[in-house]
């Protein structure tokens, strides 16, 4: 999923907020269109789509609990007629097994993700504050430049950046390389989004605080950050998912080093080297999915807002 289009960014306010403000129970344009297609057919199509979107995941989930020998012998759908023996052995093997040991990769993913979310949030909020509320020469030009950087695909920066990590900073194959990279790639969108939210805060509020003698630092930390919590949460969740699910950045900067590489890199590698070991791949895939799915279920509202705000980064 970098750089989203700037326009996609406009969606959370324009589109997502509205239904809550004006949800009316009765008729709608969509309802009319749906009724035009006779109801049973409409329902059937909806059910088919829902099934196509659910069955693949369900199949792999069931597979992850079947015995290795059963997985090879019959399709996962046979559990409905002949349940056989279900087991957690695949997860145990995937997490701790000598050759795979996804456990340590899970730790790596967590260790990579937390700073890679917090750091851009802090830096982008600071920069957004300056762009929104401070006066300095070249402010507008710089803001437009940052805005424009959103369209730069991160592929364009990867190789020279790797070169900088290897030869200049000596951070090759360390967490630092991905922490810094994810921060850099997140900044244009984060600054733009947070700036928009900052601008919505009434000017009088800030001026009053300034007149009372509060400096920028105090206004920022004590007044603005608390007010911006929903915006920061939305972007934070988006960035969290992006980093947690990222393959390319980690592959480039950490690919060859199991000690620091995240789950995605390892699972993708397993898919290549042990493509038929479905007992491992199924459990591995779900180990990598459990945290983002839990976040999705727990924070669905923020989550949707964050994803829509971010559009498709990449």
């Amino acid at each position, binding site marked *: 999923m970098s750089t989203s289009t700037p326009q996609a960014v406009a969606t959370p306010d324009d*589109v997502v907020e509205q239904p809550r403000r004006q949800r009316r129970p009765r008729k709608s*344009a969509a309802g009319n269109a749906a009724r035009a297609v006779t109801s049973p057919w409409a329902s059937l199509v909806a059910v088919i789509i829902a099934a196509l979107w659910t069955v693949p995941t369900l199949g792999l989930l069931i597979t992850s609990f079947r015995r290795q020998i059963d997985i090879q012998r019959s399709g996962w759908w046979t559990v409905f007629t002949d349940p056989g023996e279900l087991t957690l052995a695949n997860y145990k093997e995937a997490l701790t097994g000598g050759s795979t040991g996804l456990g340590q990769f899970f730790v790596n993913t967590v260790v990579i993700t937390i*700073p890679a979310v917090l750091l851009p949030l802090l830096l982008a909020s600071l920069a957004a504050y300056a762009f929104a509320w401070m006066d300095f020469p070249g402010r507008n030009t710089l803001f437009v430049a940052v805005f424009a950087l959103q369209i730069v695909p991160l592929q364009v920066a990867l190789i020279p950046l790797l070169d900088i990590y290897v030869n200049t900073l000596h951070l090759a194959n360390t967490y630092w390389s991905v922490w810094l990279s994810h921060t850099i790639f997140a900044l244009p969108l984060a600054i733009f989004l947070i700036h928009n939210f900052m601008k919505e805060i009434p000017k009088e509020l800030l001026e009053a605080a300034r007149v009372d003698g509060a400096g920028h630092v105090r206004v920022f930390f004590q007044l603005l950050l608390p007010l911006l919590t929903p915006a920061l949460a939305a972007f934070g969740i988006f960035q969290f998912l992006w980093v947690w699910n990222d393959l390319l950045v980690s592959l480039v900067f950490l690919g060859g080093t199991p000690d620091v590489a995240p789950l995605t890199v390892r699972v993708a590698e397993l898919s290549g080297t042990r493509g038929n070991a479905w007992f491992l791949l199924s459990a591995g895939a779900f180990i990598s999915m459990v945290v983002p799915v839990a976040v999705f279920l727990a924070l669905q509202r923020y989550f949707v807002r964050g994803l829509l705000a971010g559009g498709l980064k990449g």
Partner: protein
Amino acid sequence: MSTTGKFVQMFVALGLFAIVFIGILLIAARFSGRRGERVQAVSFVGPALLFLAVGLMYPAILTIIASFQNSAGDASVGLQNYIDIFTKPELLLVLRNTAVWVVLVPFLATAIGLAYAILIDRARVEAFAKALIFLPMAISMVAASIIWKFMYEYRPTARPQIGVFNAILKELGLDTYQFLLNDPANTLFLIAIMVWIQAGFAMTVLSAAIKSIPDDIIEAAKLDGVDGLKMFRWVTLPSIRPAVIVVLTTIGIGTLKVFDIVRTMTGGQFNTSVIANEFYNQSFRYDQSGLGAAFAVILFVLVIPIVAYNVVQLRKDL
């Protein structure tokens, strides 16, 4: 490194970041007056700009230069890398595949997302039905690829089938099929995965757009005798046009950069490579850094018309 060691490193890093950046702010806050404002502005905006300049702009310029150089990066080859991409059959194939992706994914994902949004609008289980379609957006493309690789799993016809699609083929009395090996159809089966991931995004945005169409417009159209599919074509669709454009272009840009799916499913073999995957392979596997850089630059250049289209279309609607 032990698990504890890793977390210690993380907390040390977080502490270090906090000390450095907050330290800069506190020092800057000691300056006062007009000059103080300037110093403080620099301390707020400086770190982010430094990161962007060193980590994004400078590397991007180096990549553009590298795209005109040989693989060792020590001699200029002019436009040769680009000429190769647009003339060598195996590289032209990469462009063709990318074009197929960028045309099909946005339209299919948007069409399915829109249809689903309309079909479940105001259904009793709407929230649940939406969550089902949206969930694939939450997981990594690597996990999504593994889920689908299992759907496509191939076994010779005589053996018991474990992949859903081949089980269906066998049930219908047909031979099982190598979904990922047989080109050019294999690209379509990879595209299906991206559609599966993106439809939830389209559905969510479009559903919200549909719900925000004012009731009086619907009422007025009804009084004029507009109903059913005509209502959709002449009232609903024009009303959500800006949202549709946002969805199409956003998914289009995401699709242009698709890497994880191709890499996990086929690694770009069997004629399935796309630009982002070829960039990776040329740069890291074949050591063709000039060619890899040229692919990255092409990716960059191809994003621009999509963004421009987006901007122009949305202007028209204002």
